[in-house]
Every structure is written in C-alpha cells, then in structure tokens.
C-alpha cells in the first residue's frame, strides 16, 4: 500500500517534470511559428469549390511554409464578426476571411484591432490593415466563352448560373462577350437556378435546365453554380455534349465531357499572401487577380487534352494577350450596373 503511493508520487513528479519540459518545448516553436486563422463561409471547407480552394491554400502553406493554422466554419452569416474577433484576441498573426459575406465584419474588426493584419478574399475592405483580394471573373469567363464558341458549330451555347446575384451576372456577361468575339452570331441561352442559397446546392434542377438547353441546340454549357454544377455535368454525359466547370479544376468529374474549367485560384492567392507575410513582404490594399497573373484561367490537364486543340489554345492565348494589353475591354457587370 505504502510502496504503491510512493511510486505513484514518483510517477507524479516525473509526469509533472515531463509536462513542464514538454510545455517549454511546445512554447518555443509557438513563438517562432506564424499563426494563421482561417474563417470560412457557411458552406465550409467541403464545398468542392470556393471555400475548399482557400482551405487547400492554407493547408499547403502549413506544409510548405511551416505555419500553424486553425480553420473555423461559420455556422451562420452573423457569426463572422465574433469568429474573426476571437482570432484577433488570441493574437493570431494573420486572419484570413473568405467570401464577400465577411466584408462588414472585416471592416469592423480591422477598425477595432488596428495592429492586426487581415486578408479578405472576394471583396475590398478599403482598410489600412487589410489585404483585399478580388478576382476578375469576367476575364476568365471571356476566355471560356471564346472556347465554347469555338466548339459550337451551330453557334448555340448555354450559361447556367446559381443564385441570381451580381457576382454570377459578372460571369455571364464576360462569357457572352467572349463567345460573341469568336462568333458574332452566337446565341446564348441563360438560366439561373434560383434566388435563395439553395440554388448552390440543387443538382437535379441544374440537370433539368441543362437538358433543356441541350435540347434547344446548345453544344456547350458553362455552369457557375457551386455544387449544382454536378447536375450539368451529368446532363452533358447523358446528351454526349460538352460542359465547362467553374472555380476549381472540375475536368476530372466527367472526363471527355468537360471542355475546361474557369479557374479562380483562391488557393494561390491565399498561399501567396501567407508566403509574403512570412517573408515580411505583406502588403495591404486591393490586389486584383486577372488573366495576367493567371488568378483566373481556363484549366488544361490530361482529362481535356483531347478536347482542346492546339488551334484553340493559340486563339485563347491571343485573346489573353489582347486583354492584358488592353486591346480588348471585357465588359464588367459591376461597372455596367453602376452606370445605370
């Protein structure tokens, strides 16, 4: 009995000492390592698209740059402010807010914590301690619009949008302009899935719309509708027609039926920003990712190598060069709408 208690006492001391040593060891790198807090939208890190891309960027930074990261997914659209604030109070070095819904929250927290650095993706916070990253979706859509027109012998193509919001209208406007550049007589069918958040998550409805557009003669459909896009890819395979994916590289989902994907390199932008932060080169203000920096682009890989010909590539690269030079002005829905 007595020896038992002594041994447990001894174990206790050893345990205590080792805990002390461990905690010292643990606290040393914690001081040196950068702590990155990532606040994702409601749809979360498994949305196969926008948030997933940001999450990949952060995970890559964790692996390649040795930073510590913590990810939270907001339970609702009112939670962004308190989640960012919690990161700021825990003295995270950089807080990354993904999605335009977080604009107001970032503005408030940036004012409340003037020494805290933020990265906001998809909106411009116009604050001195925030790096805002926006994508020129209309430019990338212009390129895939041209690609669609090149593959539509009959001159009919389609567009399927998720929720009817200005951002998706911006995709559509660029896409139509790109198609008309190649074929001025091109006819574009356009449908939106709905006006509620459910529009991002309704593959059956997207499939019905796509089947309808294909029946009306569309040969290529560009879909910008989050998860709903899967329905369009199904329809393309069923009708032996082509579709174009969005945000991430979705070519692999139905190889042979997905002509390309309009990439929005959220992962690159997030990774770049963390790297700059680590190297002490972090800048604030608005950074635009367009076709020039390949922040928006069309996807080429082994899944669509047979679909996109060398001639197609040549045409697209010429268009890209013209956009960069300013010879082509891609219409931007945000600006057009403001002028109205």
């Amino acid at each position: 009995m007595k020896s038992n208690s002594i041994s447990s006492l001894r174990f206790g001391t050893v345990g205590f000492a080792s805990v002390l040593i461990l905690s010292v060891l643990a606290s040393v790198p914690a001081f040196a390592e950068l702590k990155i807090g990532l606040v994702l939208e409601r749809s979360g890190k498994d949305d196969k698209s926008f948030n997933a891309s940001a999450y990949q960027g952060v995970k890559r930074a964790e692996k390649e740059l040795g930073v510590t990261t913590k990810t939270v997914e907001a339970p609702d659209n009112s939670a962004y402010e308190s989640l960012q604030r919690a990161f700021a109070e825990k003295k995270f070095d950089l807080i990354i807010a993904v999605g335009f819904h977080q604009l107001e929250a970032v503005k408030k927290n940036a004012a409340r914590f003037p020494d805290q650095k933020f990265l906001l993706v998809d909106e411009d916070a116009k604050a001195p301690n925030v790096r805002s990253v926006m994508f020129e979706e209309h430019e990338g859509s212009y390129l895939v619009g041209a690609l669609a027109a090149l593959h539509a012998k009959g001159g009919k193509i389609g567009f399927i949008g998720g929720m009817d919001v200005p951002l998706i209208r911006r995709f559509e406007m660029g896409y139509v302009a790109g198609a008309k550049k190649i074929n001025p007589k091109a006819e574009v069918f356009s449908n939106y899935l709905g006006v509620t958040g459910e529009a991002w998550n309704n593959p059956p409805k997207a499939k019905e719309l796509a089947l309808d557009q294909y029946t009306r003669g569309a040969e290529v459909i560009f879909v910008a509708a989050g998860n709903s896009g899967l329905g369009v890819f199904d329809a393309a395979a069923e009708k032996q027609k082509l579709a174009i994916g969005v945000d991430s590289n979705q070519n692999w989902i139905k190889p042979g039926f997905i002509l390309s994907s309009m990439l929005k390199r959220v992962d690159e932008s997030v990774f770049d920003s963390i790297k700059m932060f680590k190297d002490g080169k972090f800048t604030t203000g608005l950074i635009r990712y367009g076709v020039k920096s390949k922040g928006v682009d069309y996807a080429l890989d082994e899944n669509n190598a047979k679909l996109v010909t060398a001639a197609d590539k040549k045409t697209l690269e010429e268009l890209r060069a013209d956009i960069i030079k300013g010879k082509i002005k891609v219409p931007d829905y945000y600006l057009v709408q403001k002028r109205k």
Partner: protein
Amino acid sequence: MKSVMNASLKSFLKSAAGALLGFFIGLIICKLAGESPIKVLKVLYQSSFGTGYDFGMTLFYTAPLILTGLAVAIPFKAGLFNIGAEGQLTIGALAAAWAGVLGAHLQSPAIAIGFAFILSFLAGGVWGAIPGYLKAKRGSHEVITTIMLNFIAAGATAYFTLYSIKDPDSSQAETIPIPPVFHLKPFQIFNGAPMGELILVLIGIVLLLHFILWNSVWGYELKAIGENERAAETYGISKQKVWLSSMFVAGGIAGLVGVVEVLGNAHRFKIGFSADYGFVGIAVALVARGNILGILPSAFLFGILQKGAGSLDLETDKVTRDLSYIIQGLIILGVASEGIWDSLKLIRRKKNA
C-alpha cells in the same frame, strides 16, 4: 388559477428535465468523439457568458428566436401549425429596410424607429394572414400554404432587393443602407455586440402576449378554438376570425425580426441573413411546450447553442459546429419524448402495487 400555475410549472420542469437529458446524451457523444465533455461545457459557457461581447451576441441570437418562437406558439394555441415564420420574418425584414427608404427625410429617431417597427409588423402580419385567410375561407391546410409562402417570400424579397432598392455601390445582394436616424443603439457594456434596449422590449412583448392570452376575450376565444373547435363554435365563437387574427399576429411578431436585424445589426436587408430563425422557432416553441413565458428560457437556450456553434469549431480539436446542432436535435427529442414520464410513472405504480 392555482391549478393552472401548478400545471404550467410541472410542464416547465418536464421540459427542463427533457432538455437536460438531451444535453447529457450530447455530452456522451462528445466523449465518444474523443473530446472532453467538461471542455465542451466550458467552451459553451465561455462563448455565451465569457465577456460582455459574448453575452451580447448570445442575446442577439436569442432575440429573433423569441419572436419566431412566439410566432409558432400563438397559432398553436388556436390549433394551427405555423411553419411560415421564416417567410414572415423575411418579408418583415425587407419592410424594415424599405422603411429606411420611405422615411429618409425623418428627423426624430423615435418616429423613424416606430415607423419601421409598424411597417415590419404589418408586412409580416399580412404575410401571415394569407394562410390564415386561406384556411378560414377555403379550408386550405396551413402547413402546406405556410411552407409554400416561405418560397414565395424568398423569391419576392430577392426580386425587390435586386431590382427595386438595391444598393448601387455594392456588388452584393443587399438593399440601400437605412439612414442613421433608424439605427438602434447597442449597450456599451456589450462592447460591440449589436443588442440594446430592444431585448427588454422583446421581453415586454412576451409578457404582454401572456397577459392578453389569459385576460382578454380574444385570448379566451383563441384557446377555446384550439382546445375544442366544435364546442367553441357551438358557443358562438367564430373560428374563421380566430384563425385569421392569430395568424396575423403571429406573422407580425415574426416580422419584427426585421427590426432586430435591419435596425439593430446590418442596417440594411441582405438576402439570406437569417440563420433559419423561422425553423428553429418551431423547436423553441416545442421545447417551451407552447407556453408563452416558457419561450424566453427556451429561446435563450437555443441562442447559447447557436452562439456556441462557432466557438466549438474554434476552441476544440475533435468536434465542430455540427455538435451544436446534434445537441439541439437531442434536446428536442428529449423534450418531445413525453412518453418517458408516463412509463416512469407506470413503473413506480407497479413497484408500489
């Protein structure tokens, strides 16, 4: 009166026990997931009471749930099941934003805020009265019509937001911001959380409704129809009138969520602002067992869990925000499983016998 008090106290205790049971099972699930239940409790406590800001945010989540809880509980007293609080609050919120456009010239905060209050109530009320009317005149089932009206409300508000009063300087789907004279001031002690005197007003509304239901002719007729439709009709009470008026009041109260969100928080209407308040309201009313005063603790409990969902993601490694929803579900199950008490009674009786 005394027996009424006793009965409601008993029902409250039953609810509380059921909620505790659900909560306890939730903690067992944490343990199975490899997270310490004590830590989860601590996180939930810290996230709702830790600082003034946290408490303010918890109240901010509680406020809409008080209103939607009432919006479900009142028609329930009249025997109607209102699934349409989500649509009613969306319409009310749009109306609050529209009040800012119509009342842009107003100078006095009292008049401006009062105007927005009335407009939200009326807009939500009319939206709620539609299924009430259809039920009274056509016999359409309110569960079907309220659900369908939720979709119509989402579509209609989206249309007006994007094409009538859209903010031209914003690339998001949101309306023109309301003028500062409409803004509700939050309490300083909440340190940035968007909640102020409004929470006291909401508690006042609950007390007032409780009083009206137990001390007015309208309240009596409502309960009479709910308890026994045919007997009440024989007695000369018009069920049409009761259905229409109870749905109007319920819709109006749900519409006041617009005041909480638009005047208190975002200062504009944003598509998709609601954290499913209308549907959680059903759970709030259920856990309160339709008791009007019970709505307050019940809404507060769900407010804590909603606020805690994000914190669980942030503070723990093994569990995520989804645990909060699991606990919510278990609490509802715990409260709803009334049969447990009866079977317990049976066991006791058998033992005694």
